[in-house]
């Protein structure tokens, strides 16, 4: 029942997104869309996914789009090209897909093909084989560790891509002006600054809690990384990018992101050298369960480091590019009259 209401709301928001011309409104609605889909994931028992989607879909992705909109302009061109062929194509594809769903098993049926293949083994045996209660974590970090390694490398590569596209060597003489912009912008936000100072230690502690609690409840490296990055982003937004860069400078964070991937790979290599398969944690220690615990612990740390640092890198570069653009514009405005 809950899922039907949530899905209907999702559909309404999506239709509203098509019709909006103001890109700012589109981004705000996509934030609502992220929150709604995360609530849907909770209603579907996917607590780990809801955790991630809440932090990523509703928080970070909205934030990044917002930063970009402030650089690229807010209003969309009203003319759409070829709306009718597009509509026709979409309707035909949609009808075919709906025809395809008629053969699908009904929602929630326990004998659907998905539930008959490997899932029973994960549910029944993971406690004996891995020894941690959260099945999602044991699948993610142990049974399908190689998969997760691939995903981590994708995230790392995306971070490198953003660096390659946006980063530049900072000219030292430009720094003062940027500090000036920051200063004038933030001197009035006293209340938020104080509240943020109170909240920041709590957020960082909570990220660590999520990191370590991932074996027993919803959480783990991905979520902890995103929450940690969100805390740093909050700091950078309110206290200025240059201040945040003093806390976490660019080479350091780049090093951390690479270290994460390296650590992940090394865990696999060590288990290979100890006589097992790649990512076979049973061989990390004399006792199989201890080995599994050690492997999952290390891998969650590797994931957390890489995710946090890549998201921080992405945000820093976006915000940095924006500040450089703004200071260039200011210079231009000062010269032109």
């Amino acid at each position, binding site marked *: 029942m809950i899922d039907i209401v949530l899905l209907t709301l999702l559909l*309404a928001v999506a239709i509203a997104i098509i019709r909006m011309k103001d890109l700012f*409104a589109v981004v705000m609605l996509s934030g609502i869309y992220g929150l709604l889909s995360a609530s849907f994931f909770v209603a579907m028992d996917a607590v780990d996914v809801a955790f991630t989607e809440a932090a990523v879909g509703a928080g970070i992705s909205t934030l990044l789009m917002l930063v970009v909109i402030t650089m690229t302009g807010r209003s969309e061109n009203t003319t759409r090209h070829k709306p009718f062929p597009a509509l026709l194509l979409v309707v035909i594809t949609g009808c075919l897909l709906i025809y395809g769903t008629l053969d699908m098993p009904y929602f929630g049926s326990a004998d659907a093909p998905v539930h008959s293949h490997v899932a029973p083994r994960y549910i029944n045996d993971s406690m004996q084989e891995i020894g941690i209660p959260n099945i999602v974590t044991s699948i993610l970090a142990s049974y399908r560790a190689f998969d997760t390694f691939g995903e981590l490398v994708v995230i790392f590569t995306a971070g490198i891509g953003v660096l390659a596209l946006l980063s530049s060597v900072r000219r030292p003489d430009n720094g003062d002006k940027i500090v000036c912009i920051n200063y004038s912008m933030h001197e009035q936000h006293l209340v938020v600054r104080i509240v943020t100072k109170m909240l920041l230690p709590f957020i960082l502690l909570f990220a660590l809690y999520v990191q370590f609690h991932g074996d027993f409840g919803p959480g783990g490296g991905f979520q902890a990384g995103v929450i940690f990055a969100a805390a740093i982003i909050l700091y950078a937004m*309110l206290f200025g990018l240059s201040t945040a860069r003093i806390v976490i400078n660019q080479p350091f964070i780049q090093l951390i992101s690479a270290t994460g991937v390296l650590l992940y790979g090394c865990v696999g290599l060590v288990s290979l050298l100890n006589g097992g398969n790649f990512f076979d944690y049973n061989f990390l220690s004399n006792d199989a369960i201890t080995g599994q615990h050690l492997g999952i612990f290390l891998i969650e740390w590797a994931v957390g480091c890489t995710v946090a640092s890549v998201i921080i890198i992405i945000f820093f570069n976006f915000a940095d590019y924006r500040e450089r653009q703004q200071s260039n514009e200011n210079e231009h405005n000062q010269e032109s009259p």
Partner: protein
Amino acid sequence: MLVAATLAIFIAMTLAIIRGISGPTFYDRILAVNMFGTKTVLLISLLGFVMGRPEFLDIAIVYALINFISVIAVLRYSDTNQFKHTPATETSNHQSTEKEH
């Protein structure tokens, strides 16, 4: 009572979405998103109790934090000229609100 409270939260969420869509100024939209976020925190807490496993309240904490961060982000990055409030930036016909301006 839990189910009734969940229903009430759903109604409040729907109203917030309507305000978020219809808008007129972009502050109304931020307000709607903010309210929607608070209601989502409550919904998640309630859902935990309705579904019988209330130990996953960590998610609600994350929601509260993320909601704060996104509102701060919106306000932090709305300092450029294109977000200055002028009647020309209005998207719908509620412009009568700003006649005095």
